[in-house]
C-alpha cells in the first residue's frame, strides 16, 4: 500500500536533488458521487485522480506547486519550476524546517470493497433511499472516495497512508418540508439507504405544514449535524494557533470558556473516525485534547505556528500556512441521555435538525448568522407539538456552549458533517446537545 506513491515521491526528490529542501506528497484516488433529485439520478460522476505536490525550500524561501503529470518529463518540470519559484521570493522568517523521520501514524481507515465500489452499488443505495419514502421526493448523494497517499521529504521522512469514505446524505421532501437522512462510514457496505430514507421521510412528514414562530431566545435541542457545524467554526477560527497568535481567536488557554460538561478533542487514530493519520507536513495526528471539563487547554499547530510558539506541531497543517492550522477528526464527548430524554426535559423550546449557510459576523466573538434547515420543531411540555418554519439566528457559538449553557449531552454520538464540512469534507463525532438559549433573529417574514 502506497509503494507506487512513494516511488513517485522519490523520483521527485531525486529531481530536486541538493538544490533545495523538499517535501513531496503524492495522492492517487478513486472518487465517485451519485447525485439524485426529484427521486432520480441526474448527475453521476467518477474519476481516477493523481496529484503530486512539491514544496521546495531554498534558504528559507519556499514555494509549493502541484501537477497531475507523473511522467519523468512532468516531474522534471515540476521540480525545476518549484525550485526556481522558491528562489525568486523573499525568505519566510518563520520557516520551521522539515519534519525529521520519526514515529509514523498507525491509522488505516480503509475498506477494500469501498475502494472498488461500482456505480451500480451506489445506485442501489440511492434506489433504497428513494423507495423508503413513498409519497416524498428524494434529493441528495451517495459517494465513495478512496485515497492512497505517500509523503517523503529530503530529511529522510517517509510515510504512506490510505483512507476510504462512503457517504449518504439526502433529503426526503414534501411540498412544504424537507427531512434529512445522513450516514457515513469507511465502508459503503455500512450505508443503509432504506434506513436513511425512512428517517428522512419520517422527518419530512413530521415537519410538513410548519407554523410561523416569532423570533426570540429559545432553549434548543441541536441534532448532530448542527453540532458539527458549530465545531467547524470553533476549529477553523478558534483552535487555530495562527489565528490565536494574531489575536483573532476566542481562545484563552486555561480558562473555563465552556460548560463543565464539554470535552473536545481531535484524534485521527480513533477507529470511529475517517481519513489519513498524518498531515501534509508528515506529522502524525495523535489525540489532542482541546477542551477538558470546560477548560480550554490547547491549540492546534502546524510546524510553522509551533515554531513561533515554541512548541511542537500537533499534526494539523491545513495545507496552507497562510490559513493556519486547523484541528480535524474532532470528538465532542457524549453524555448519557437519550435524545428523547433531552427533548423531554424542555418545557418550551425548539428541536433543530440541521443548520444552513452559516457565516461569521466576527471570528473573535464567534458570532455567526445562519438558518435552520431540514426539520425544525416546537417542543412544549417535553413533547414535540408542531413543525416550525425555518428561522434565522445570530448567535455566538462559544457563548451558546459557555458555563451553565449546556443542559444535556446525548448518548447518540456519531459522525456528522456540518455546514462548512459539507463543502470541505470535514466530519466530526458529535452527540445531540440541549442548550439553554439560542438567539433566533428572523423568520420567513424577515
Amino acid at each position, binding site marked *: 500500500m502506497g509503494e507506487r506513491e512513494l516511488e513517485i515521491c522519490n523520483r521527485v526528490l531525486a529531481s530536486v536533488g541538493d538544490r533545495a529542501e523538499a517535501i513531496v506528497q503524492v495522492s492517487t484516488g478513486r472518487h*465517485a458521487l451519485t447525485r439524485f433529485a426529484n427521486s432520480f439520478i441526474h448527475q453521476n460522476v467518477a474519476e481516477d485522480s493523481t496529484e503530486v505536490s512539491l514544496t521546495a525550500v531554498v534558504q528559507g524561501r519556499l514555494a509549493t506547486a502541484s*501537477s497531475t503529470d507523473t511522467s519523468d518529463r512532468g516531474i522534471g518540470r515540476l521540480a525545476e519550476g518549484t525550485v526556481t519559484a522558491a528562489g525568486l521570493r523573499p525568505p519566510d522568517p518563520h520557516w520551521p524546517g522539515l519534519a525529521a523521520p520519526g514515529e509514523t501514524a498507525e491509522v488505516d481507515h480503509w475498506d477494500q470493497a469501498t475502494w472498488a465500489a461500482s456505480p451500480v452499488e451506489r445506485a442501489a443505495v*440511492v434506489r433504497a433511499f428513494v423507495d423508503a419514502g413513498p409519497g416524498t421526493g428524494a434529493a441528495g448523494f451517495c459517494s465513495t472516495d478512496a485515497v492512497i497517499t505517500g509523503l517523503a521529504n529530503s530529511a529522510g521522512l517517509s510515510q504512506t497512508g490510505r483512507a476510504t469514505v462512503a457517504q449518504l446524505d439526502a433529503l426526503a421532501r414534501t411540498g412544504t418540508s424537507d427531512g434529512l437522512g445522513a450516514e457515513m462510514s469507511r465502508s459503503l457496505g455500512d450505508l443503509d439507504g432504506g434506513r436513511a430514507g425512512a428517517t428522512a421521510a419520517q422527518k419530512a412528514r413530521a415537519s410538513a405544514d410548519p407554523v410561523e414562530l416569532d423570533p426570540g431566545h429559545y432553549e434548543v435541542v441541536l441534532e448532530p449535524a448542527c453540532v458539527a457545524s458549530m465545531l467547524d467554526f470553533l476549529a477553523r477560527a478558534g483552535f487555530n494557533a495562527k489565528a490565536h497568535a494574531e489575536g483573532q481567536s476566542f481562545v484563552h488557554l486555561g480558562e473555563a470558556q465552556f460548560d463543565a460538561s464539554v470535552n473536545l478533542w481531535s484524534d485521527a487514530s480513533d477507529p470511529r473516525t475517517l481519513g489519513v493519520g498524518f498531515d501534509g507536513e508528515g506529522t502524525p495526528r495523535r489525540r489532542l485534547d482541546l477542551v477538558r471539563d470546560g477548560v480550554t487547554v490547547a491549540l492546534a499547530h502546524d510546524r510553522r505556528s509551533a515554531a513561533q510558539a515554541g512548541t511542537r506541531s500537533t499534526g494539523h497543517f491545513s495545507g496552507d500556512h497562510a490559513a493556519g492550522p486547523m484541528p480535524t477528526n474532532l470528538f465532542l464527548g457524549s453524555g448519557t441521555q437519550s435524545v428523547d430524554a433531552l427533548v423531554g426535559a424542555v418545557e418550551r423550546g425548539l428541536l433543530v435538525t440541521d443548520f444552513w449557510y452559516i457565516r461569521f459576523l466576527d471570528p473573535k466573538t464567534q458570532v455567526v448568522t445562519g438558518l435552520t434547515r431540514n426539520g425544525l420543531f416546537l417542543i412544549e411540555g417535553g413533547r414535540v407539538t408542531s413543525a416550525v418554519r425555518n428561522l434565522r439566528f445570530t448567535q455566538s457559538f462559544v457563548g451558546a456552549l459557555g458555563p451553565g449553557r449546556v443542559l444535556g449531552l446525548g448518548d447518540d454520538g456519531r459522525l456528522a458533517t456540518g455546514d462548512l464540512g459539507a463543502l470541505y469534507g470535514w466530519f466530526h463525532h458529535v452527540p445531540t446537545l440541549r442548550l439553554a438559549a439560542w438567539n433566533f433573529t428572523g423568520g420567513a417574514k424577515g
Partner: protein
Amino acid sequence: MFDVATAAVEGALAAGARYADARVMTTRTEGMRAQNQVVESLRQDESAGVGVRALIGSSWGFFATPCLDNASARAAGAEAADVARASAMVAGPALELAPVTPAQADWSSAWEEHPLQIPLEAKADLLVGVTRASQDAGASLAGASYAVWDTERWFVSSEDARISQRIVECGAYMEAIAVGDSETQRRSYPGVLGQYGTRGWELVRELDLEGNAVRIAEEAQALLRAPQCPAGTTDLVLGSAQMALQIHESVGHAIELDRILGWEAGLAGTSWLELARLGELRFGSEVMNITADATLPGALGSFGYDDEGTPAQCTDIVRDGRWVGVLSGRDSAALAGVAAGGTVRGDGYSRLPMVRMTNVGMLPGTSSLDEMIAATEDGVYMDTNRSWSIDDKRLNFQFGCEIGWEIKGGVLGRMLRNPTYTGIGPQFWASMDLVGNETERRFWGTPHCGKGQPVQTGHTGHPAVPARFRNVRVGVRG
C-alpha cells in the same frame, strides 16, 4: 488535444451512449499571499486531463482521468457510459437536449500583460510593500494576495462541435484588520475577497493597491472606536461592491434553472421562483433591470462558448422589475421549454459542467451615489461585504458589511461599525427606488462561488451600481 477529446467521445459512443461530449483541459494557477510583510504562501498548480459525459436514455454519466493518451481517453468514455447505465437504475423523465448549432471555433480572452510572465519578485514586492504601508498605518494584520488562472480547453461533441478556448484571469486582494479587546474590524480593498477579471496583470495595476493601503488601515482602526450601527428600520444605500454580492446571492443563484427544477435541493437548495410564472412574476421595482451577459470584455464571467459548446450570450433576467429569464444548460432548458442559455461550465477537467452564473449584473439607472445620499433624509450607507447568509430558497438574507455611515438630512455622518441588514428578496428588491448611473458601474468579479457535489468553485462576474432601498431592517446583532 482534439484527438484525445475525440477518442473519449468515440469511447462513450462505442459503449452505447446516444450523445457524448468531452473536454480536455489544462489549468495553470498561481497565487501568493503576504501578511505583515512576510510572504506566507506561494503556490503554482497545474492540472491536465479529460472529462467525458455520456447520455444513455435519459441518464447521464461522467468520468474523468488525468491520463491524456488516446487509449485512456477512450477507456474514460466507456467508463462514462457505464456510469450512465447505472444512473438508469433510478431513471428520470425522458430527456432531449435543447438544440445548439455545433460550432467549430477558437476563442481567447484578451490580455495586455500575461500575469504568469510578471516576475515573481515584482509580485512579492507589491504584496510585501502594501502590507508594510498598511502595517505602518496601524493595521494589526495587513494582508495582500493575488491569484492567476490560465485555462485552455478543447471541446468535442458527438454532434461534431469542435471548440478550443483559452481564458486568462487574474486579480488581487488586500485587507487591514484591527484587533480590539473584544472584536476585530476589517477593511478590504477593492472589495471583499478582491477584484478579478478575464484580463491580464494590467487589471492588478489599475487597482492601485498601494494608493489604498493606508486608508483601509486607518478605517479599520476607526471602526473599533465607531458606534454600533443602530437597530431599526431605515433607508439603506448600498455601494456597488455590496450590490455585487447582493445580486449574486439573491438574484444570481435564484435564477439558476437547475435550482428552480429542484436539482440542487440536496445541498445548495432550490429557488423561490416558480417556472410557471416566468415572464409575469414581479421580482422587484420597476427600476430593476438585470442581465446575464457572458460577452462583456474583461468581466470575470465572460467566455466564448460554455462547456456544452453553446455560444456566450446576453440574456435578460429582470426587465422593469419583471422576471423574464433564467440561467440554463441544454438539458435543463429542454425540460423547461426555453432556449439553451449557454451558462454551463465545469471547474477543471474532472468536474461535471453545470449551470453557473456568467456576468449577472444590474443595468445602470440615473443617479450618482452623491445624489442618492443627498436625497436620503434618514438612513445608512453600507459597503464591502463582511458576512453573507441566505436561505435555501434564496429569500431570507442577512448581510453584514465592513463599514457604514449614517445619513442625516442628505449628508453622510458618523462612521458605524458592524452594520448589518436583513430582508426577504422580492420585498427588498421592490423597495429599490434609486439606481446608480453608468459612471458608478463596476464589473465586479468573484472567483469563489461554491456549488455542486463534488463542490466546484465558479468564477462569476457582477456588473453593479450603488442603489437605495426603503425601509430596510438594519443593525441585527447576536
